[in-house]
């Protein structure tokens, strides 16, 4: 009896350990694969070509700057929409809405988060883009701005859901302490509840932005996919092509092992580095402001 219990214990711990390690192994394998396929591009394509302004693989032109700028402009636009709107909604649900309203809103937002992005792309092509073209008098409605709007919409449920959980986790005693000092509801939210939930709110923003950078299907459908470098503010209202859309559109047709193939993987590496930077930046902000005692408390 004793012996079989020990044996079971041994197997279970090992199994849990193995699944933990396998996650690390998978990440490392993906990383090595990405490097093996992508790094040769640096030798094969001249630096002048790689940093030129034209992405035209059939003519051996591999300028990746327009793609990077396309991704950045769409992502920043999406973040500018999703962060204020998402946190505002989270504050409303957690702090202001009456209970019955909260019980309707929270599942609704989570349902929104489960919408396939192709469906949002549909909505973009059929509703947002034609109306935007008429409203702003543009030559085409398939622009970076359209992409930002829809990506913002995709990121909002993520931001709301995570930020709301963080706000909800702030003990009621914090709020009562501030109220008892004569703070109004708004002053309490701004100076006490939000700062107390800071790390969770930052995580929410990070996850939302991460979702926006990595999103492929919607942007491919609504941004027009023209690899033009965004230089002016007006570029927001012209077509752009993002890194993710480029990979998704061209990977299927590229010759395995060609220069074009390696360059697409290089774009993958850049994408990976960008999201890594966002993650590291966000977590360093969270950890720097936290002293030991605060970590224990939270």
């Amino acid at each position: 009896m004793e012996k079989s219990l020990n044996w079971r214990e041994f197997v279970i711990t090992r199994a849990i350990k193995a699944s933990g390690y396998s996650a690390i192994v998978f990440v490392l394998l993906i990383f090595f694969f990405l490097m093996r396929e992508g790094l040769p591009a640096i030798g094969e394509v001249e630096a002048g070509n790689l940093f030129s302004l034209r992405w035209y693989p059939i003519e051996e032109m591999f300028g990746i700057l327009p793609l990077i700028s396309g991704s950045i402009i769409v992502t920043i636009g999406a973040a500018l929409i999703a962060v204020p709107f998402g946190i505002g909604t989270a504050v409303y649900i957690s702090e202001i809405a009456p209970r019955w309203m909260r019980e309707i809103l929270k599942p609704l937002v989570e349902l929104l988060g489960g919408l396939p992005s192709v469906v949002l792309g549909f909505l973009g092509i059929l509703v947002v883009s034609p109306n935007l073209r008429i409203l702003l008098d543009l030559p085409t409605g398939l622009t970076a701005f359209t992409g930002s709007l829809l990506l913002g919409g995709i990121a909002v449920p993520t931001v709301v859901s995570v930020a709301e959980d963080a706000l909800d986790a702030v003990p009621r005693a914090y709020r009562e302490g501030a109220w008892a000092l004569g703070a109004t509801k708004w002053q309490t939210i701004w100076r006490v509840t939000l700062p107390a939930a800071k790390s969770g709110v930052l995580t929410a923003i990070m996850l939302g932005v991460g979702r926006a950078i990595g999103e492929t299907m919607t942007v491919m459908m609504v941004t027009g996919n023209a690899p033009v470098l965004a230089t002016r503010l007006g570029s927001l209202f012209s077509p752009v092509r993002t890194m993710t859309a480029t990979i998704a559109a061209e990977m299927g047709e590229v010759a395995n092992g060609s220069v074009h193939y390696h360059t697409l993987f290089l774009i993958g590496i850049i994408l990976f580095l960008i999201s890594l930077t966002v993650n590291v930046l966000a977590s360093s902000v969270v950890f720097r402001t936290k002293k030991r005692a605060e970590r224990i408390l939270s």
Partner: protein
Amino acid sequence: MVINRLMNKIEIENLSLQYADGAESLRGISMGIRQNAVTVLFGPAGGGKSTLLRCLNRLNDLTDIRTSSGRILIDGENILDPKTDVIALRRKVGMVFARPVPLPMSIRENITYGLELAGEKRRTKLNEAVERSLKLAAIWDEVKDRLNDPAVALSGGQQQRVCLARVLALQPEIILLDEPTSGLDPISTGKVEAALQELKKDYTVILVPHSVQQAARTADHAAFFLQGELIEYDNGKKMFTAPKEKKTEDYIMGRFG
């Protein structure tokens, strides 16, 4: 209950209240609370002590309440009147909670926050208030060299005294304390209790103690609450040596509760 009406800071008249979830309630409470004295509200859990305390600064406004009736007069004004300026009331009636909850700011900002909300911007005034209130709460010597550290880095006992100082900085007239020492060690408890005896010279202090012993140590006047009713209200010494009611005696002697 022969307490001179003229000396009463607070007059509670036939106050009844019931929460929406039916958890705790108050039934027809009438009592006068004296200025410059420590009034203790004690009794077993669920008796309505905290509820009464939270009526006095209208913190119950934010809870689901089914019914309430009666009046609470502070300096002759009914604070339960819907026209009452609740923010001003809460500056006049400060509150310290059972769990010390420093706001997520530095020690100094914890003290100055309430004053800044009230519109005080002058640095000299704020610095004065920080020193004065931390001294009153008997914690100045322990924190004076690290006022810019986050308040959550302090020990529990220190945090609770910072929370007391935070309330004192506003120079309220009435201080409510809801089991302020329930999580503290005996030494910190002693410091808080000593501070209360100092405070009553200038303030009206109302305390919900965390034990009968603390009630007996600190009370000038004591009120015994049981299941939402005020059973007995008297001078502290009398209450803890010769209670009139059988129920009070049983509770003090530890026969129930």
